[in-house]
């Protein structure tokens, strides 16, 4: 009986935790829309085209993580604890978009569209000069990593950070900018195709970019983790979620910015090296294949 009571209490507490702290209809619709499209797409694609379970899990967990850090009580906690805020941004900028990009969801998502919307219509919008130019402008070897690192640096500037944590609209601009930039960056980096098959950048340059973008993040993280000055007093000003030494909070946040983020870049480099090697092998096969068939016929 006592156990049942405790279980009920736990369930009530858990469901309270899972409710949005600040409801964002835009995010809710985006996440639900992506989920429905992907689900419908999965049921429609032929068995041979269906992504492997690993890719499906990557998509769902990436989406779920993004939703969790923005639309549950975790969002409240990350507004009032620096290291939880860094964890939130690790999910929004690295882990969530990384998993979504890794799952290569675009084909499945496109198949999930209602029958009335023809793929040709989407392709036409995609080919609009405005969109193509904007995309190419953001998604290149120079701007993409600069934007990726620049955003981290920008929102971690003490003064900007203070305002973002105090102002509701600015807070949402910050989190959306991290999520959108994360998606752009990791979709560009983790494109499964080599350059000659349509990827905007070759495997080699992507490996270089991913590793180069890691270094400034490690410097920013280390600076925060090793500083003995309270860099982000907004958490004292607005109140922390619970009692913790401000410097401990800051050091934990610095470590999260430094180490797991850097690890994601190393993992990305490994994934890219693996894909590069696989494509090279296929290429060699293709080059050998005609000779062997020729000799067979002869």
């Amino acid at each position, binding site marked *: 009986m006592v156990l049942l009571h405790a279980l009920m209490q736990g369930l009530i507490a858990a469901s309270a935790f899972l409710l949005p702290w600040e409801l964002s209809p835009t995010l809710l619709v985006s996440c639900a829309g992506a989920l429905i499209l992907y689900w419908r797409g999965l049921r429609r694609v032929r068995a041979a085209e269906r992504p492997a379970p690993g890719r499906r899990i990557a998509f769902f967990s990436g989406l779920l993580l993004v939703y969790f850090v923005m639309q549950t009580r975790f969002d409240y906690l990350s507004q009032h604890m620096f290291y939880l805020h860094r964890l939130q941004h690790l999910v929004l900028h690295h882990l969530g978009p990384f998993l979504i990009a890794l799952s290569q969801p675009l084909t499945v998502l496109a198949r999930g569209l209602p029958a009335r919307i023809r793929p040709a219509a989407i392709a036409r919008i995609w080919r609009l000069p405005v969109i193509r130019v904007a995309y190419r402008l953001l998604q290149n070897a120079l701007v993409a990593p600069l934007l990726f690192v620049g955003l981290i640096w920008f929102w971690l500037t003490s003064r900007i950070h203070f305002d973002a944590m105090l102002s509701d609209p600015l807070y949402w601009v910050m989190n959306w900018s991290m999520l959108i930039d994360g998606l752009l960056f990791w979709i560009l980096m983790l494109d499964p195709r080599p350059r000659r098959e349509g990827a905007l950048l070759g495997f080699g340059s992507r490996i270089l970019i991913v590793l180069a973008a890691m270094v400034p993040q490690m410097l920013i993280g280390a600076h925060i983790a090793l500083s003995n000055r309270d860099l982000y007093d907004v958490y*004292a000003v607005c109140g922390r979620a619970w009692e913790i030494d401000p410097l401990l909070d800051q050091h934990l946040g610095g470590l999260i910015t430094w180490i797991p983020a850097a690890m994601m870049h190393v993992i990305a480099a490994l994934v890219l090296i693996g894909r590069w090697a696989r494509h090279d092998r296929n290429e060699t096969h293709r080059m050998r294949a005609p000779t062997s068939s020729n000799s067979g016929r002869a």
Partner: protein
Amino acid sequence: MWRSRKWALAALLAAGLLSACSGEGAWRTHDIFKLVPDLAFSLNDDRGRSVSAQDYRGKVTLLFFGYTHCEDVCPETLAQLAQTLRASGSGRDDARVLFVTVDPARDSTAVMHGYVQAFGPQFVGLRGDAAALDALARRYRVSYSLGKPDAQGRYEVTHGSAVFVFDREGRARLVFTVKDTPAAMAQDLRRVLFDSGAGAGAG
């Protein structure tokens, strides 16, 4: 092509930096004009009257969250605000310090009244039920938490140390933090008091 793109990027970055820094130097404390919502609440004051933000229009208000059992931050902050008000040269009816208790269980109307009177006639104690208090804390993104009571029934209370300054029209203008000196606070408060509205566009 590459050159022009680089220049465009540099220009963009510079524009961003400039807009981020504009207005700085003008204020010695933290400018929050247009970042934080206008003053709005409905609570009870330390004489038991139900009051709202409307009752303080025409006065500059300083909003602060705390509790009377607080041993250091709250009395220190309130004493500093009393000093700041004196130094700013505000008249008796120019400004009000609104001290909102996050611990209404222990801070009754009478307790609040005795507490705020000690700091001066411009100090008002405000209390409300959990819903009204939560709504206000949420509006200003301020958190507070009450710890578990010990054997003697004492408990820890944590709360933000922000002092939000609203002008005579109830618009949020400044945040004072523990880092700000009374001199800096007094100087900025004087500006809000005496050119209320005039300097608003500059921030």
